[in-house]
C-alpha cells in the first residue's frame, strides 16, 4: 500500500465525536411488543379510539409480514421482543422559557451544537426539539400560528388538529406499505406535524432535531407535512445520537403532501452513531420517506446528507400525481469503517408533463459498502415525463465497495429518461497536485470531497450546508484531532 493510501485510511478512521449519554430520568416500558404494548402506548399518549384502532390494525398486518432482505446490507437478526417500544423523559416539560428546562438537557443540546432558543431566534429558525420520544420544546409557535401555520409535535397535533391528522395520516405511506412502516404505524412514539395554509409562504426554515437517548429504545418517529395550495415550506431535519454498544433500531416514517402549486423542500442531515471502527454497535436506520405531489404544478424536493448509522435503508420518494409536478432528490451518502448504506429514491410519474431529477453522490471509505438504489417509473398514461438521474460514487481506499442499482420502468413512449453514472477513486494525482500547492493532506481531501458534493450542498439551506460540510470532514477525518 502506498503512503498516500495509508493516509486515506488514517484520514477516514476517526472516532465518533457525539458519543455520550445524558442522565435525564427516563420512564420506559418493559421490553417486548404485543397488542397490550400498542394499546399502552396509545393510552399513555391519551389518543382517540380511532388512532388506537389504526395502530392495532397496523400491528396485526405487521405480524403477517416478513422483514425485507433485498437491500444490499447484512446484519444479525433483530429480536423485536428485545426492544423497548416507549421511553419518555419523566419530568413532563411544559416551559415558557429556557430557564425552566432541565439544565442537563440544555447541556446535551449545547454539546451537540444545537442552538436552541435565543441563537435560533436571531437565525430565524423555529426549533421543535425532540429528545427520545416526546417533544420538549417548541419555539415560534405563536409567530407561525398568526399565519395559520401549524408546527407542533405529532402528539399535540393528534389532540389539537385531529381532523387533519385523521385525513392525511397514512395517506402517502399506508400502514402496511412495508415491514418497517407497519411497525412504525403500530408503535410510533412522536414526531412532527406541519400544516401550511393556502397561499402562505412559511417565513422561516422549520427545523427539528431528533435524538435517540435512552439505551435499547427503538425510535419510531412519525412526521407529517401538508402544504396546501400555493404554499411553500422548507423543513430541516438533523440528528446526532450518543455512543452505544448495542444496535438500536430506528424505523421512522415521513409523509409529505404537496397540493396544487405548493412546494415542500425537505432537507436532512443524518449523523447517528455509526458503530465503532470494528463495526460494533451503531444505529439501524430503516426509514420510509415519501412525498405526494398531489396537485398540478406541485413540487417536492428531498436533500439529504447521510453520514451516520451502522445501516441505512432509506429511499425518499416522490409520487408525481399532479400534471406538471416536479420531484427532486439530492443525496450525499458517506460510509466509513463497517457502515452499510442502501439508499436512493423512487420517482413515480403518474401525471402529464412531470419532471424529476436525481443527483446521488456516494462516498465509501474504510471497509464500508455503499449502494445507490433508484427507481424511475413512468405510468402508461403519463405523457411527456422527463427524468434525469446522475449517480456518482467516490471510493477512498481499496477495501470499500460502491454499487449502483438503477431500475427503469417506462410504459409511455413519450417519456425521456436519462441516466448517468460514474465511479471514481479519490485520485492520488489530485492529492499530489493540491499538496504541491501547499495544502495539508487533510485539507486536500476535504477540498476534493466538498467539490464532489457541491451539487448537493448547493441544494441545502445555507446554514445546513455549512453543518453538512463540517460533518463530512468529521466523518472522514482521522489524522487530525
Amino acid at each position, binding site marked *: 500500500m502506498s503512503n498516500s493510501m495509508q493516509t486515506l485510511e488514517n484520514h477516514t478512521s476517526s472516532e465518533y465525536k457525539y458519543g455520550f449519554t445524558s442522565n435525564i430520568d427516563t420512564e420506559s416500558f418493559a421490553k417486548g411488543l404485543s397488542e397490550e404494548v400498542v394499546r399502552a402506548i396509545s393510552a399513555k399518549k391519551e389518543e382517540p379510539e380511532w388512532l388506537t384502532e389504526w395502530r392495532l390494525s397496523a400491528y396485526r398486518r405487521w405480524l403477517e409480514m416478513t422483514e425485507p432482505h433485498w437491500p444490499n446490507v447484512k446484519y444479525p437478526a433483530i429480536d423485536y421482543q428485545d426492544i423497548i417500544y416507549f421511553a419518555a423523559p419523566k419530568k413532563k416539560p411544559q416551559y415558557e422559557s429556557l430557564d425552566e428546562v432541565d439544565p442537563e438537557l440544555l447541556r446535551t443540546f449545547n454539546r451537540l451544537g444545537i442552538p436552541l432558543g435565543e441563537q435560533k431566534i436571531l437565525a430565524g429558525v423555529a426549533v421543535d426539539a425532540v429528545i427520545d420520544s416526546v417533544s420538549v420544546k417548541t419555539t415560534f409557535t405563536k409567530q407561525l400560528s398568526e399565519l395559520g401555520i401549524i408546527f407542533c409535535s405529532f402528539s399535540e397535533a393528534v389532540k389539537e388538529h385531529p381532523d387533519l391528522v385523521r385525513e392525511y395520516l397514512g395517506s402517502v405511506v399506508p400502514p402496511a406499505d412495508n415491514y418497517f412502516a407497519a411497525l412504525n404505524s403500530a408503535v410510533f412514539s412522536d414526531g412532527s406535524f406541519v400544516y401550511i395554509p393556502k397561499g402562505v409562504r412559511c417565513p422561516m426554515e422549520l427545523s427539528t432535531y431528533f435524538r435517540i437517548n435512552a439505551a435499547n429504545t427503538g425510535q419510531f418517529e412519525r412526521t407529517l407535512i401538508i402544504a396546501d395550495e400555493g404554499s411553500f415550506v422548507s423543513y430541516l431535519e438533523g440528528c446526532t445520537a450518543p455512543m452505544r454498544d448495542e444496535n438500536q433500531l430506528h424505523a421512522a416514517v415521513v409523509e409529505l403532501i404537496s397540493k396544487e402549486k405548493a412546494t415542500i423542500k425537505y432537507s436532512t442531515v443524518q449523523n447517528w452513531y455509526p458503530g465503532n471502527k470494528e463495526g460494533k454497535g451503531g444505529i439501524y436506520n430503516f426509514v420510509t420517506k415519501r412525498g405526494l405531489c398531489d396537485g398540478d404544478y406541485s413540487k417536492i424536493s428531498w436533500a439529504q446528507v447521510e453520514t451516520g448509522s451502522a445501516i441505512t435503508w432509506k429511499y425518499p420518494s416522490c409520487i408525481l400525481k399532479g400534471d406538471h409536478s416536479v420531484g427532486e432528490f439530492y443525496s450525499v451518502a458517506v460510509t466509513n469503517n463497517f457502515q452499510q448504506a442502501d439508499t436512493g429514491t423512487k420517482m413515480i410519474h403518474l401525471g402529464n408533463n412531470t419532471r424529476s431529477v436525481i443527483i446521488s453522490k456516494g462516498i465509501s471509505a474504510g471497509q464500508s459498502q455503499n449502494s445507490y438504489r433508484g427507481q424511475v417509473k413512468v405510468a402508461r398514461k403519463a405523457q411527456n415525463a422527463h427524468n434525469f438521474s446522475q449517480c456518482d460514487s467516490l471510493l477512498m481506499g481499496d477495501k470499500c465497495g460502491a454499487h449502483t442499482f438503477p431500475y427503469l420502468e417506462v410504459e409511455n413512449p413519450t417519456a425521456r429518461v436519462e441516466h448517468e453514472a460514474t465511479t471514481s477513486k479519490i485520485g492520488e494525482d489530485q492529492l499530489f497536485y*493540491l499538496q*504541491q500547492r501547499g495544502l495539508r*493532506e487533510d485539507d486536500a481531501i476535504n477540498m476534493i470531497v466538498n467539490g*464532489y458534493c457541491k451539487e448537493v450542498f448547493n441544494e441545502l439551506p445555507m446554514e445546513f450546508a455549512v453543518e453538512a460540510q463540517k460533518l463530512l470532514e468529521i466523518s472522514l477525518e482521522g489524522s487530525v484531532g
Partner: protein
Amino acid sequence: MLEIKDLHVSIEDKEILRGINLQVNPGEVHAIMGPNGSGKSTLASVLAGREEYEVTSGSILYNGQDLLEMDVDKRAHAGLFLAFQYPVEIPGVSTATFLKSSVNAVRKGRGLEELKPVDMLKLLRQKAAELEIDPKFLQRSLNEGFSGGEKKRNEMLQMSLLEPSLGILDETDSGLDIDALKIVADAVNKLRSPERSFIVVTHYQRLLDYIVPDFVHVLSQGRIVRSGDKSLAFELEERGYDWVREKA
C-alpha cells in the same frame, strides 16, 4: 540552492534515474533536455515529492535542508514549485477557492499571516491581469474543461502567486501554440531574479528561445550525459537525440 548528489530512483523495481548530479545556484536557469523516457519528468516529480518513486540512494539538499525528508506540502512552503505537465481537474472546486487556499496555506507555512479577503481578491485580480486571464475564468472549476493553453496559464498564475524560490517546469511547453508559449515564457522571465532559480524540463529547444537558460543538461537513460551552455540546445536540435545516445 539545490544540490543533487548521485540520485538513484526506481519505480516498481525499474531503475529510472541512475546517478544524477546537479547543482543549481540562486538566480540560475537550468534546462533539462532529453528524449522520451530518459527520466526528465521523473526528476521533476521526485523533487516535488511524488510518492510512487523510490529513492534508492543519493541525496538532495535544498537551501541546506534534506529535501527527501520533507513532506510534499512542506516543500511547497519552503519555496519549491512544480508546474505540471498535465494539471489535474478538480470538479466542483472553483479556481478562486483553490488559489485562496493555496496562497494562505503557503503563507502560513512561511510564518506569514493569512491574507484578508479584500487583499486576496486584489492580488488575484492583479496577477490574473498580468497573465491576460479573464477574471471570469477564476469562477470555473479548477482545470475542468480548460484548454491546454488555459491550464498552463493557470499554472503560471499559481507560480506568480506563490513566489517560489525554485520553479520547476515539467514540459510546460508541450501542446502549446506559439502565443501560449510566449505567455508562459513571459511569466517565467518576469519572475527571474538573482534569488530565484528555475529548472526547465523540455523535449524541444523551441521554449529555450524564449526562456534563455544559463545551463543545458542532456539526460539519457537516467544519467546526465552532457552539460553545457545554451548552444548545446541548438546542437541537439540540429543533430537529434541519437547523437547523444551514441555518446552515452
